[in-house]
């Protein structure tokens, strides 16, 4: 019942064929973080082939975009990758603004940057906790959620939602931020660095964690390019590719921040990239809070939005990599086509090649370091 008799693959070094078995990991598995299913052909604990099976929560977001007005698609964007909802809304809003040539007030752009970067920290905190619980350390998860909670409280104050914000609108924001938010954001910028130092001391420098991640799951820059992997995955492979620098958007060019890059290509490099990114996000938030201009948060937007015919795209650096919205308009009030380029899909697609020959615990550690959000893959 265990052995798969058909077509046994040749053993290592061309020896006698060995018996393998298929391990069905998921769609309900503690390490799958949702409904990802991976069919693993195993030789003992060694993976000879891992085939991700996706589509369990496919919700037709792209098709939904084609049969409702531009504005009505807006709430969908925060449900694709619910952990970095701000970035996704930003991309769609940005694409429409680019097409309709809507001017966005400076204050709105600054607040977009502040909320996007806070959202990035919140998303990375979830990833950090989830990775550690994948590795069997259950405690960091609750500490991470403690910090994330502060951000979610701030977001709740400005837009009423804690997860699916839909805070950005064509031409600006739905609400201006209040003093509570600004005070809270400043307090958070003060609160976070000591916490990050504690995480570094207690978790990052832990010898067991180092052993689990260092040198495990190499993903080269070449492999990233072939599969289109972006975000911390490619920055952990030594390529300083960040949409905020490569295709600057919103108010990002006005801030001084670094792109953390680690050339080691292993899980530890991806881990460190994200940990450093949180520090950089804090820097951006601090600068934006210091130089936040006064003024309106909503530009001039026509009451009935009809985009001129054409093909428009807008990319943002989401927490997991490059998220791009491509919209095609034929002049009507509903889109002709909405295409969503999601980072998790590309980041997962390299898993099959990267996990070949790894053992199960290492492959799951690498899966955790890819930071997948399954609704983002299926969308």
């Amino acid at each position, binding site marked *: 019942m265990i052995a798969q008799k058909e077509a046994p693959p040749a053993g290592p070094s061309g020896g006698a064929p060995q018996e393998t078995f298929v391990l069905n990991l998921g769609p309900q598995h503690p390490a799958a973080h949702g409904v990802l299913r991976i069919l693993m052909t195993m030789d003992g604990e060694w993976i000879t082939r891992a085939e991700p099976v996706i589509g369990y929560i496919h919700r037709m977001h792209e098709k939904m975009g084609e049969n409702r007005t531009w504005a009505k698609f807006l709430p969908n964007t925060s449900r694709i990758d619910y952990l970095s909802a701000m970035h996704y809304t930003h991309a769609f809003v940005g694409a429409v603004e680019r097409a309709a040539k809507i001017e966005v007030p400076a204050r709105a752009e600054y607040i977009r940057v502040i909320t996007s970067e806070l959202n990035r920290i919140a998303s990375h905190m979830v990833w950090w906790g989830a990775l550690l619980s994948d590795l*069997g*350390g*259950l405690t960091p998860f609750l500490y991470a959620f403690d910090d994330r909670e502060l951000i979610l409280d701030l977001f709740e104050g400005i837009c009423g939602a804690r997860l699916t914000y839909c805070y950005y609108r064509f031409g600006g924001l739905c609400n201006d931020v209040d003093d509570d938010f600004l005070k809270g954001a400043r307090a958070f910028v003060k609160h976070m660095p000591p916490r990050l130092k504690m995480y570094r001391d207690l978790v990052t420098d832990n010898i067991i964690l180092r052993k*689990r991640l260092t040198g495990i799951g190499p993903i080269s820059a070449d492999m990233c390019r072939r599969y289109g992997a972006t975000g911390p995955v490619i920055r952990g492979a030594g390529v300083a590719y960040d949409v905020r620098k490569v295709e600057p958007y919103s108010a990002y060019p006005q801030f001084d921040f670094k792109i953390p890059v680690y050339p080691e290509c292993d899980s530890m490099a991806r881990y460190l990239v994200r940990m450093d990114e949180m520090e950089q996000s804090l820097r951006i938030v601090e600068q934006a809070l210091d130089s936040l201009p006064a003024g309106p948060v909503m530009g001039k937007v026509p009451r009935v939005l009809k985009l001129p015919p054409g093909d428009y795209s807008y990319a943002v650096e989401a927490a997991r990599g490059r998220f791009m919205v491509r919209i095609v308009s034929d002049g009507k009030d509903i889109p002709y086509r909405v295409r969503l380029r999601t980072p998790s899909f590309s980041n997962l697609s390299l898993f099959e090649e990267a996990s070949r020959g790894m*053992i199960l615990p290492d492959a799951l550690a690498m899966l955790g370091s890819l930071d997948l959000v399954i609704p983002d893959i299926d969308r």
Partner: protein
Amino acid sequence: MSAIVQNLLGPGWPWVRLLLYLAGIGAFVGANAAYLVLAERKIAGRIQRRPGPNEAGFGGWMQPFADVGKLFAKQMMIPPGTDRLLYCLAPLMVMAPPLICLTVIPYGENLVARNVDVGLLLVFSFGSINVMALMLAGWASRNKFAIISSARVVSQNVAYEIPMLLVVITLLMATGTLNLNEIVGQQGGWFWNWNFFRVWVNPLMPVTFVIFFICMLAETNRAPFDMAEAESELVAGAFTEYGGMGFGVFFMAEYANIVVGCSIATVLFFGGWQSPFVVLSGPVFGPLWFMVKLYALVFTVMWVRWTFPRTQFYNLLNLSWKILIPISLFTLLLTGAMMKLPLLLHHLF
């Protein structure tokens, strides 16, 4: 009154003594398993900045009863295609060894069920049955995760039995007896007479304790070495197909094994029922000291679990074969040399 008790416990009535101790050990294991689970959840809560179970009873004190009630209420399901005999036998086999091991552990000067001369040998020989039970559980459940888990359990336990026994042999060379009560008796007086602090026997004595403790964690399948039940890799490992009280027995056995392991550590390294300061010893305070030391060690086991991530399986084996076994062999040789050195010097000069 005491004469009657003496008479009942005396040589004329061995079965009364036996029955008393059977009931006592049963109650001890049951209470420990139930309340150590609660303690673990409370400690985990404390470490993770949350309250832990606090609904059932005052401050959650009835939680173990609620848990056991739930487990008993569940249907005992045997999945189709399993090896029924082995599937049902495995929980029994995993529970029996710690019960037997507890019979020889001296809780106080006269508080031991059987004062066996080969007590330590008995503990380690029965302790290793545990592996077979887990292996059978994994094998019988006809589940791929369980099979992987049982393969892991066997290689892990083979790897960690060796440094553990080497450490024990090191201690035996110092104590010269396998009788646990005598080993405790030798560590009387102030706390520097405990084997842990006896650096004149072997300067690496604290290191041997650390090795013993690591091996104990690995033998009882506790985090960070919980390869058998690596929930983020193997779902629940060997116990994946067990439900209801079948799972509950595995759970209880885990805690019973921890109690046995920590008791042995207390006896071997921390002077068992001996008071650390000469005063406050005797038949009343002896068991109390034993419990204090035992639960301090049990707490450390839990503390480690909620603080560290899990090791990777091959790192775990490397730790044993490449680090622990060489060090424990070295301490063994060092102890031998230090014991024989005076004799050698005497012969030479």
